[in-house]
Structure formats: structure tokens, C-alpha cells
């Protein structure tokens, strides 16, 4: 289907907004997950009881690694949600009228 540059521009802009939203909401949930998770679990547990690749992990690195892990998982969930909503046919979020 031929698309005008304006529509392409709008789609591109929407894509960037979506990427930003996904990264931002997953950042927020990663912060919550880190606070709750590391209150219950000492990241040094990974060094003491985890796989061999964590043998040289200190606590600070453990916190950072955990945070980025939570962030990645959150971004995955958030990104999938956006993808499912945007790719639905008919649009999952229309204004209530049938097309």
C-alpha cells in the first residue's frame, strides 16, 4: 500500500514514543523489583551458591547486574504488551466505534 511520507513520519514518531515508554515503565518496575528483591536476597548469594560465572561477583556488581536483569525482563513484558496492542486487528484500543 503506498504511504505518504507524513504517515511514515507519524509511524516513526509513534515507534520512538513506544520505545521510550517501554524503557521508562520497565525502569520504574525494575526499581521496585530491586528494592523488594534485594531486601530479601543478598546478591552475594549468587557468588556463594550460583553458577561458576558469578565466582568473582562483588556485592555492588550484584546489585547492578540484578537491576539490569529486572529492567530487561520488565522491558520484555512491557514491549510485548505494546506490540500485542499495536498489532491487533482490528485495533485493540480504538475509540469504541466499529470501523
Amino acid at each position, binding site marked *: 500500500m503506498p504511504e505518504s511520507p507524513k*504517515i511514515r513520519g507519524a509511524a516513526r514518531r*509513534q515507534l520512538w514514543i513506544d520505545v521510550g515508554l517501554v524503557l521508562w515503565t520497565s525502569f520504574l518496575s525494575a526499581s521496585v523489583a530491586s528494592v523488594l528483591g534485594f531486601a530479601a536476597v543478598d546478591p552475594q548469594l549468587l557468588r556463594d551458591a550460583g553458577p561458576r560465572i558469578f565466582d568473582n561477583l562483588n556485592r*555492588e556488581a550484584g546489585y547492578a547486574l540484578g537491576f539490569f536483569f529486572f529492567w530487561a525482563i520488565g522491558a520484555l513484558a512491557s514491549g510485548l504488551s505494546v506490540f500485542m496492542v499495536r498489532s491487533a486487528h482490528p485495533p485493540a484500543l480504538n475509540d469504541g466505534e466499529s470501523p
Partner: protein
Amino acid sequence: MSAESVLSPAALRRLNKVQPASDPSSFYAASEKIYPREVKGRYASRRNLTVAVLLGLFYGVAWLNWRGHQALLFDLPARKFHIFGLTLWPQDFFYMALLMIIAAVSLFFFTALAGRLFCGYACPQTVWTELFLWIERRTEGTRSKRMKLDQGPWTAEKVLRKSTKQIAWLAFAAYTGFTFVGYFMPIRSLGAQLTSFSLGGWAVFWIFLYSLATYGNAGFLREQVCKYMCPYARFQSAMFDKDTLIISYDETRGEPRGARRRGSDAQTQGLGDCIDCTLCVQVCPTGIDIRKGLQYECIACAACIDACDEVMDKMAAPRGLIRYSTEHAMHGKATHVARPRLFVYGALLAAAAAAIVVSLSARTPLILDVIRDRNALYREVRGDRIENSYTLKIINEDNERHAYRLEASGLKDLTLAEPLGVIEVAPGSVSSIPMRLEAPAEVAAGVHPITLRITAADAPNIARTEKTRFIGP
């Protein structure tokens, strides 16, 4: 080919969600830079005061000491939180959870009572944006000067003003990042490491990240954080009702708006009190027009109230064309301050506060963990006695050194194989003590639940009891 003819109505509607369809060229429009006009008045002074106090607290408290240690330190490397005299361990997460609940419910309570007080006065986004705006005013001048500077060519003056601003922004951002990390790693040693260029990799990483966040959020994103990124801005309307204090424009008094000569009679010209000077729009940090009604972009900073009051004074009209009001008051009805919603939030707040006070006052600053030796169930010693081995983990959560005594009970003639004497544990540290218990063989057969109790010799109210097992043949 026009967009309308190619796309289905549904696809068009989907696109229309991005930008209003009336102006398709705005698809490309980046959000326009907002130049908030400087404002003076009652609310501006209050906000400046709040901003100064909050920034002072943030930068100052980090350096405050309390009995030899940093007063407020969420020491992540050591997994200990110091809050003045109180030291919280991971085991005390309950208190942190209660504190967070109190913070959240207070936000709900004050939002229901007085609208977005937090957004307009206390939100870090607002506070640091004010700081960065102040720097911008000092280096680039007033709103009109800033606009002219941005539009004009790159003269030597523009380069000088812009680079001064950037240097000041970067310096404040870097110091903010440093201070922030100083709440999570001891700030004095962080400072010493910084000046001797021996900072650890992670410290550098987090300082850099938070500096960047400060610089980006307060320097560039500003109102866009409130408009596009803040979830609270979207759901705060759930706490609103018709009795919530909001900033509103008195439409019945102001309309029809229009310019007029000073001293001329508005009524004979068929005009309301609004002279359409647009100052309320110019001072708005989020760039909205309050005269269009309450919008979720409004952070309730009250800058438009100050601006409009000044104009009303000049026009010799009463103040308050834009004012703090409630929807009920605006429609000539009575405002109810005491209403069920406030009582519910208030009760929740009181319950959480009571829970934290009661549990903190009943807290014993001592933890005892008893770990049985996993290698041997029991050992026969001196022919007729059975011995079990344990490791005691004693955590002294108090801020003073204590000496503890151990008692074991639950089995006849249960004794310590070797006297332990008193166990000294330094404040805020953990002590691991290997320990053996023994009992005569004739009573020891089978598994017996036993009780270990440690008591501080100098403070009998600091005691812990822990259950474990004594195993015989």
C-alpha cells in the same frame, strides 16, 4: 495522494491519537520549547522557599553525622540502613515497607485535600527544574531575552552565555549525582576517593548515571517528564473529587475576555475581567492555558495565580480571577473539607504510623540464629555423654557494644561442653560462635526440642530465644 483516501477510518483514528487530525503537518512537530516567564508573588515566594529548603536538606543531610557515623546512609555495600540512631538490617525490611506505605498514603491524603501540592512544590522534578531555570535566568536573562538569544545568530555573547549555563548545569548535575550516591555509599570516603581519583568502577558508573539523569531531566525534559513520563500525573485524578483544591480560572467572571484601555469600563464594552494578556500562559512551566479548564498537565505550581493577581492589581480589579478553589465552590456550592475519602486516607495513615511507632519501640536490637552442625548428628564423649555441635550467629543491631550470656534449656542436665563466658559483640556487627552442648546418654536418646536464650549482661531486656534440636542415639 492524501492520507484520507489511503487509510481505513480505523487506521486514521489510530493515527489521530498521535496528534489532532486537523493539522496533519503537526505529525512532524517536535514538542515546542517552553520559556517559562519569571514570576513574582505569594506562591512564587512559597515555592522558592520550599525549593531552597528541600535542596538544602538534600545536599546538607548527606554530610550530617550522628554519633560517629553518617546520619542518613542506606549503606548498600554493607546491607545496613542508618537512619540517625536507628540501624535497620535486611531482616527489618518490614519497617522500610511501612515507611513506604506511609509516604504513599500521605501523597494520597494531601492530593485529596489540596490537589497536586507535591507536584507543584516538592517533586524532585519540580525542585531541580526550578534550580536549573534559576541558572538559566542568571546566565541567559529573562524570558524574552532567552527567546531572542535562541533565535539569534551565534554571536560571541551567545556562545559565552550558553557555555556558562552549560558549565553551571553540568557542575550542579555532577554534584547532585555525587550527593545522591553518597546516600548509598559513605559520602566522606566517596569524597576522599573522588579527590584522589581512586573511585571504584560502580561508584563512577552510578554517579555518572544520576548526573546525566539530573542534567537531562532538569535541563531539557522538564515539563515533558510530567506530561509524558509521570504515571502519578495520570492517576492522581482518582484521588480528586469536587471538593479537592485545584487551580481554576473563574470563567463567569473572566469571560468574555478581551483587551481594553486601562480605566475603561469593561461592562459597557461587554467584557469580563480577563484582559487576555496571556501572562498566565507565559508563566506556565508546562505551557498550558489554565483558562481552558483543569488539565492533567497542570502541576498546580500556582504561577498563573501570581501572574494574574499582579495584572488584576494593575487593573484595580479584585484578585482571584485565577485562584485556588474547588469545583463545588466554582459552581456556587459549599466545599466540604471533612469527607469520607479524607477519613479513609487519614485512618490508613494513622494506622501505618501507629504500627511503625509500636513495632519500633518493641524492637529488640538483637538477632540470634542457631545452625546445627550438618556433618555429625551427635558424638559420644567420655563414654557416657552425648555431644551436639552448633554455630551461633549473633547480630548486635544496637549502637552500643554488648556482652551476652547463653543459657540452654529443654533437656535434663543439658550443659555447655566448654564454658563460653560472655560473648562480646561490637555494635552493628555479626559474631559467629561455634558451641557444643552435652547431656548424659541416658536422657539423650532420640530427638529433643531445646531452647537457647541469649541475654545482654548489661541490659536484661535485650534478649532473644531461639529453638533448635538436640539429637541423641
